[in-house]
């Protein structure tokens, strides 16, 4: 027996899956599944006996606790938001509140390295690359952009990784590599500059000798 509907759907089966859940859903799921290898989450039980429990007549306590918690969260968020220094150097700075929760120290680390990187960049831009006969600045920019994108990747992983320390270390390493790249470039430029000075001095000496 022919069933055109069935044939049509099985021919185009893949195209019928058009929906996708919100990306945030994973985090909601993640919080509710047991992770055994991680250090067990400590659950502090409040038990004051049956007469003084949080259920039943103490329902208002829950509401009060919720309100205090909300105010607390709000204030922390507000303060941390206003603490992020304005850096015009491109570095994916933390803005997600979730990251703030996972790694609160990240904002400070990022702020420190951002200012360091900015400083190095300023030093670098003092050199005139064309005069020194160098045109590899684009290569360095590309390298820095690559580092920045892997930094963003790491930051995403921070949200889901069980071992945040490892990810954090990788992120810090990433920032250190950037500074190292800029340092190397500065060294190279300094060497070239001194070499050029020497050669021009020699030339001058030669000319005067002639």
């Amino acid at each position: 027996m022919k069933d055109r509907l069935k044939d049509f759907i099985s021919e185009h089966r893949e195209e019928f899956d058009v929906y996708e859940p919100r990306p945030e859903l994973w985090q909601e799921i993640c919080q509710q599944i047991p992770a055994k290898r991680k250090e067990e989450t400590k659950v502090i039980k409040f038990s004051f006996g049956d007469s003084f429990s949080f259920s039943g007549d103490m329902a208002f306590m829950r509401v009060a606790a919720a309100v205090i918690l909300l105010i607390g969260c709000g204030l922390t968020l507000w303060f941390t938001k206003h603490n992020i220094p304005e850096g015009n150097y491109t570095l994916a700075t933390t803005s997600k509140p979730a990251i703030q929760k996972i790694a609160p120290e990240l904002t400070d680390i990022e702020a420190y390295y951002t200012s360091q990187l900015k400083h190095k960049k300023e030093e670098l831009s003092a050199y005139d690359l064309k005069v020194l006969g160098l045109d590899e600045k684009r290569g360095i920019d590309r390298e820095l952009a690559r580092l920045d994108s892997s930094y963003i990747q790491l930051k995403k992983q921070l949200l889901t990784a069980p071992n945040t320390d490892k990810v954090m270390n990788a992120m810090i390493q990433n920032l250190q590599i950037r500074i190292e790249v800029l340092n190397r470039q500065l060294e190279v430029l300094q060497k070239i500059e001194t070499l050029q000075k020497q050669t021009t001095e020699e030339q001058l000496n030669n000319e005067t000798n002639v």
Partner: protein
Amino acid sequence: METSTYQDVNQQVVERCKGGDNRAQYELYKLYSKAMFNVSMRITNDYAEAEDVLQEAFISAFKNLHTYKSEASFGSWLKKIVVNAAINSIRKKRSELVPMDERMVAEVPDEVPDDNDVEWQIDKVRRAIQRLPDGYRVVLSLYLLDGYDHAEIGEILGVSESTSKSQYSRARKKLLEIMREPHFAA
């Protein structure tokens, strides 16, 4: 050969999940969430409800992973969980999926309605399925899109195989009616 290595990889991820590895759990989620969400969406026909179901199903899957014995593929094991969660969800909210009187009338002639005048477009078919009443939509989706046969659908819904069959042919007829409606533009 390729399928077996794929299975192995999957099996490894599942094993890591059993050990509580968060990264492995995310890997499985990434691999299956879209397909499972569509399964859930077809049954519930509601985005928020489908998400609740997906969340509930994944949590229960990760918690009960030790009961998964790799006889079936992980995907079909997970899908069963999603389907059951979705059906429970709509049962809670709505009345019987298959009305009592239809459970009694088992045999319905397998007439195939004329479908030559119907315009076959994926989007149109999909939207028409969404407009079916719950009972019809669930049976039709499980049969046509999720690859269950009538015996399995009967088991899932707690009805007989022949009820699933007759419910499907009614659903199919209704679907063609919807698609023929003059206002149901593509």
